[in-house]
Every structure is written in C-alpha cells, then in structure tokens.
C-alpha cells in the first residue's frame, strides 16, 4: 500500500531553472491536490484536480503549472524558479470531495 508517492524528496534549484515534482497515487482517487507549506504559514493550495483531464487553480498558482493525464499521476511543474518558491511541497489525494486527504511525504525545495 504505497498511498501517495512524491519524488524527489529534496532538491536545490538555481534561480531561473525549471523542474517537475512528481506525484503518484495508487488508491484510484479522483481528487488530487498540490499544497505548499512555509514555516508558520500553514498549507496553501496551489492547484487541484477533480479527475483526469480536469485541473483548477488554488490560492497560490502563480509560477506553477499542472497536468492530469491519468488518474494516478499529478505532476507539478515549476518554470523559472524564484527564491519565493523555496518551500515544502505536498501532494494529496482523496476519494471524494469532503473526505480526508492522504498526503505524500513531501518535497523540500530550495531555490538559490
């Protein structure tokens, strides 16, 4: 039972570089989410998806892009990394809207 798997666990990027954070879930959940967590700031929603082919912006989408070509995968793309994107990124999934989320273990990203 893998649940939600995120890769990589850690990454250091230089300003202006791009990268993709990977997220895969094996629970056949329709709903998937990307959050970022900054110290003392709680979890902020970046993007979410209610099913394959459907995505929508959350509270803080600027500088990010997502795609959802399959039920299992929900990658988060960072274009032109900036220091403000230094954070811990969590992917989560849920069976139905309003149900408890299952979170991945996070990706700690530093932009220098």
């Amino acid at each position, binding site marked *: 039972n893998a649940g939600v798997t995120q890769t990589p666990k850690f990454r250091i990027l230089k300003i202006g570089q791009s990268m993709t954070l990977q997220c895969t879930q094996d629970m056949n959940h329709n709903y998937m*989410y990307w959050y970022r967590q900054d110290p003392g700031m709680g979890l902020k929603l970046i993007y979410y998806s*209610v099913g394959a082919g459907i995505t929508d912006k959350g509270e803080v989408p600027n500088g990010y892009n997502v795609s959802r070509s399959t039920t299992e995968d929900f990658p988060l793309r960072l274009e032109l990394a900036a220091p403000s994107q230094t954070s811990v990124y969590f992917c989560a999934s849920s069976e139905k809207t309003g149900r408890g989320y299952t979170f991945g273990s996070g990706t700690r990203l530093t932009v220098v």
Partner: protein
Amino acid sequence: EDQVTQSPEALRLQEGESSSLNCSYTVSGLRGLFWYRQDPGKGPEFLFTLYSAGEEKEKERLKATLTKKESFLHITAPKPEDSATYLCAVHQTSGSRLTFGEGTQLTVNP
C-alpha cells in the same frame, strides 16, 4: 472568504497534563471540519472529520468536538509520542478543497 485560525501557536505540556487546542473558523457553509497530525519531515496524517455542531469523535487520548464557530481537540493525559503539529482544516459546502489553519505545535515533555 474562508478563514481558519488555530490557537495557541505552540503548547508545551508535561506528560499527563491534559489540555485543549482550538480551531476557530469562518465559512459560508460548513461541509466538514478536519483534524490532522503532522510529524517533523512528514506529510499530515488524517485524524478526524466532524460534520455538524455537537458531534464528537475520539481516538486514544484525543477527542475532537465541534460547535458552530469552533472545534476543540482535547488531549487527555498526553504522552511524549503525542508531540506533533496539529492542523485543522475546513471544507465549505461549495467547492472541493480544504482550507487549512496554521497549526498548533504541541510538545509533551516526559
């Protein structure tokens, strides 16, 4: 706009010293209130969902309660392994995502 405020920001307890964490919320319509536990370096772990005022749920030393404006997470006779950050989140009736509070960092000393 949904707002979720947790207090205190940090709480230190001695082992066996019971206390409560607070989560105050403002939403246009509450569909559910969630509690999560987060250990350092890990993702949040689901604890409870509460759906209506007056509802209570328990798990080991934790009990969550809900009113129309706030929720409490009561910790009875805590142990050092209860040390973690506890997050509260709300799901409003319109929309498909949760809004999280900033969390309460709980430390239980032996």
